[in-house]
């Protein structure tokens, strides 16, 4: 893979195996600063594993991950966070007995900078405001609705002041109005200069949000390109709609 120095994230032939399962297989792609890259693929394609490899929950078996010019392959999550990489979790993980603002303050304290509490609180307040949670700032996280918890998940990761944000299904379970609002928030985050890698099952949303799409299938890159290109790619269509051969043979037999 060529490196021109402008990539904010580079994956170079990254693989991860769990026992007999090759979850991520020889995967390479790069991200440009300021872009929204959508990661799609059928269930079990390796999307969430990839997030766990990038932010250091798992170390890859082989391959290299370079973030902002720094080799972060196999680094622990708190180290990766210090470099300016934050993430959300598909299953929301709020600190339930802390308020919305306190949750975000934690994010700010352990994010890109090692901030004193009073500074962290200011950053947290901005994140709370940007995600539209200002009216629930003092609410305990456990009292939030699912839509509120999803926003908090995003707000807390944002409070870490990341350069790169990994979003894992932040739209899942939201109603159409909430989805619209969240899409607006994600666009605002990008406009503030944050690069975004996003996993999402709501296809209309991810296709309209993303500048580019990477399609994973069985841990490998199946396709990469503009949303419109990817949606017309024969291999992608087959991965989603199934193999047409079985039906063709069936009709041949009938």
């Amino acid at each position: 893979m060529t490196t021109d120095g402008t990539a904010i994230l580079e994956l170079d032939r990254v693989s991860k195996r769990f026992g007999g399962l090759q979850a991520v297989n020889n995967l390479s792609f790069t991200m440009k600063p300021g872009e929204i890259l959508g990661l799609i693929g059928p269930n079990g394609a390796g999307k969430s594993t990839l997030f766990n490899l990038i932010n250091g929950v798992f170390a890859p078996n082989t391959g290299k991950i370079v973030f902002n010019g720094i080799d972060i392959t196999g680094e622990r999550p708190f180290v990766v966070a210090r470099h300016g990489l934050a993430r959300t979790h598909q299953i929301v993980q709020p600190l339930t007995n802390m308020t919305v603002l306190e949750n975000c303050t934690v994010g700010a304290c352990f994010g890109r900078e090692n901030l004193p509490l009073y500074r962290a609180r200011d950053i947290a307040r901005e994140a709370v405001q940007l995600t539209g949670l200002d009216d629930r700032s003092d609410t305990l996280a456990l009292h939030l609705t699912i839509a509120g918890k999803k926003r908090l998940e995003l707000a807390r990761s944002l409070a870490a002041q990341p350069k790169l944000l990994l979003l894992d299904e932040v739209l899942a379970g939201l109603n159409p109005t909430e989805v619209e609002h969240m899409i607006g928030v994600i666009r605002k985050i990008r406009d503030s200069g944050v690069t975004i890698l996003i996993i999402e099952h709501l296809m209309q949303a991810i296709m309209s949000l993303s500048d580019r799409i990477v399609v994973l299938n069985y841990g490998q890159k199946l396709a990469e390109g503009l949303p419109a290109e990817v949606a017309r790619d024969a291999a992608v269509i087959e991965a989603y709609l199934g193999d047409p051969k079985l039906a063709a043979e069936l009709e041949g037999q009938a």
Partner: protein
Amino acid sequence: MAETVLEIDALEAGYGEVQVLWGLSLKARRGELTAIVGANGAGKTTTLRAIAGTIAPWRGRVRFENEDVTHLPTHLKAERGFALVPEGRQLFSSMSVAENLELGAFTRRAAKSYTERLERIFALFPRLKERQRQLAGTLSGGEQQMVAIARGLMSDPDILIIDELSLGLAPVVVYQLLATLKQLKEQGLTILLVEQNVHLALALSDYAYVVAEGKIFTEGLPKELAAKPEIRKAYLGL
């Protein structure tokens, strides 16, 4: 066109706080095979669960034979003639094939003509007759799917609801199962099928629904649907 057996109206359901179905409506007609297709996470399995009653619908109606069964407990739905063949078979793997089939006939409705029905089902699936004493967990994937369908049939259903027929099965097994379903349909059984292979679902159904984001994205006769770009849009957003 055949009469409507099952009618789902504006169904909403989910898990915990997470809503999956956002007002989904569909119909299944007598003696027809109705297919539901859609991408992962679209709400297909949740729809079947809410219909069968293994999860409680939040809002909306389930009508069966002109009766509102929305909040009827699952075991009473089984007495009314619902059978669900769940995704991944969910057999009692340390029990024999015969015992699995016996458990399918647990309802009063099914107990009546048990022996006769068992013979009919063994005629449909000769393989299961041969293997009736074998532990279900030791069967091949295709044979396990046969047991799952046969167990559903043992409850003497009016509607057989199947979640993922072809998943993980060899083509030859899929053909056998499809031939069996066709026979059952000709005998008047109503079938509601979730199938991950869109081409297969369209090839074998009488009517098909495409689900996306917890709602019906489009529906129609399979031949008409196959010609339209809507299915790709439902799966890929563009």
